[in-house]
């Protein structure tokens, strides 16, 4: 741990968030734009706990990564609708502009990147695991950081890529960001990028050499994270520089 990873030093109060916009990112993924009076600010990579209350008082709680850059005017969450998801099927389904729910945060001081930490920055994402990594890239752009950064992002199909247009735009700014997509199930006609799961060879060819001591953040489903983190270690990256967040349908 370093001094830049500040602990959460105060009581985390439940706050009321009001939905000011909902935007479909992909057929299964929705962006929630929130107005949260009293929001204390956050760092890229942190998450919030969301609590829903039914009319009879029943409550359900889950964690969601924050998608917005730290100094963004509004907090945004990106929620993937899971077929068995009690909370996600509501947030990415019935929820409408003007609705309210509770959240508290920001939470987590480990899976965090700030521009002051420097780079290179190697981000490895599977599916909606891209969300906290997107907060890091948005922060990098907002802070006008030009530390070399690479995002390796695995999606099922072209239409499942979250933030595709924004990633294209960020990667086109010529400030040292490279984005590599790999598609594991369906490829659009003419697809020239990688078309398989993330593996050791891909991590080696796309990522930075261990000598460059990149800060590595891996987020996605457990099998992807387990395999990628082990491969990165075996490629010679120091385990202390490999930070992971894992999730599954029930883990989040």
């Amino acid at each position, binding site marked *: 741990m370093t001094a830049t990873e500040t602990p959460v030093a105060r009581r*985390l109060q439940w706050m009321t968030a009001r939905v000011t916009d909902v935007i479909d990112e992909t057929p299964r993924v929705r962006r929630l734009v929130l107005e949260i009076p009293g929001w204390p600010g956050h760092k890229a990579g942190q998450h919030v706990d969301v609590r829903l209350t039914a009319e009879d008082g029943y409550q*359900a709680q889950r964690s969601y990564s924050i998608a917005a850059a730290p100094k963004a005017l509004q907090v945004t969450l990106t929620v993937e609708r899971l077929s068995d998801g009690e909370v996600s099927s509501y947030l990415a389904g019935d929820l409408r502009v003007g609705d309210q729910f509770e959240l508290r945060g920001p939470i987590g001081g480990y899976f965090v990147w700030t521009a002051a930490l420097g780079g290179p920055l190697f981000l490895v994402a599977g599916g909606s695991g891209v969300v906290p990594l997107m907060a890091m890239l948005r922060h990098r752009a907002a802070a006008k950081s030009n530390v070399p950064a690479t995002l390796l992002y695995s999606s099922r199909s072209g239409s499942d890529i979250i933030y595709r247009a924004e990633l294209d735009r960020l990667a086109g700014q010529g400030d040292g960001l490279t984005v590599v997509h790999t598609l594991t199930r369906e490829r659009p006609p003419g697809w020239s990028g990688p078309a398989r799961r993330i593996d050791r060879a891909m991590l080696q060819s796309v990522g930075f050499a261990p000598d460059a001591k990149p800060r590595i953040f891996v987020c996605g489903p457990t099998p992807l994270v387990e395999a990628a983190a082990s491969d990165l270690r075996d490629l010679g990256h120091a385990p202390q520089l490999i930070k992971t967040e894992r999730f599954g349908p029930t883990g989040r």
Partner: protein
Amino acid sequence: MSEPPISRGFRGRGRGASSARVPPGQHLVTDFPVLSAGPTPEPDLKSWSFTIEDGASPIGEWSWQQFNALPQTEVTVDIHCVTTWSKLDTSWRGVSIDTLLEAAGLAEPPGPFVLAHCDGGYTTNVPSEDLVDGKAMVATHYDGEPLDPEHGGPARLLVPHLYFWKSAKWVRKLQFLDVDQPGFWEELGYHSYGDPWREQRYDGD
């Protein structure tokens, strides 16, 4: 505290017969999610050892073979992760902390607090009284099988009455201390004790 806002249209379906066994804010799962902060260490059982320290002095050390020759304990318990999943009736086998202390020739813990140390640098703090009298073990088996590395194998601490981050994966050392010293997540704003029934998720809860 004021009434929480109703989430319009949210009905929820987590109300269940087992709810008396599910702490507030938790929901049941049937799979076994994996959450760790870094890569899963590769176990090397030849060089593996388990150590108990009183402050900075080692007072007990066991090789993998010696550790597995200690009397075994089996428990079936419910576990509760701070990320809000709970899993009922999980079966574990390992060596209880009572047995480890006895094997080290100690009648009671040599200090009131413990900092558990793990491969990969993870630490977590637990009061000594929460580890003794059958409340905790160093588990080597889950559901009758050797514990998978991604779930903490070859050995993890099991303190099922506290949030599961206290049940440190890849545990190698219990350090008994006179003062409470926060561990990895506790330094990062998670609760120092972590009682799921009092919903002690974060500092100040």
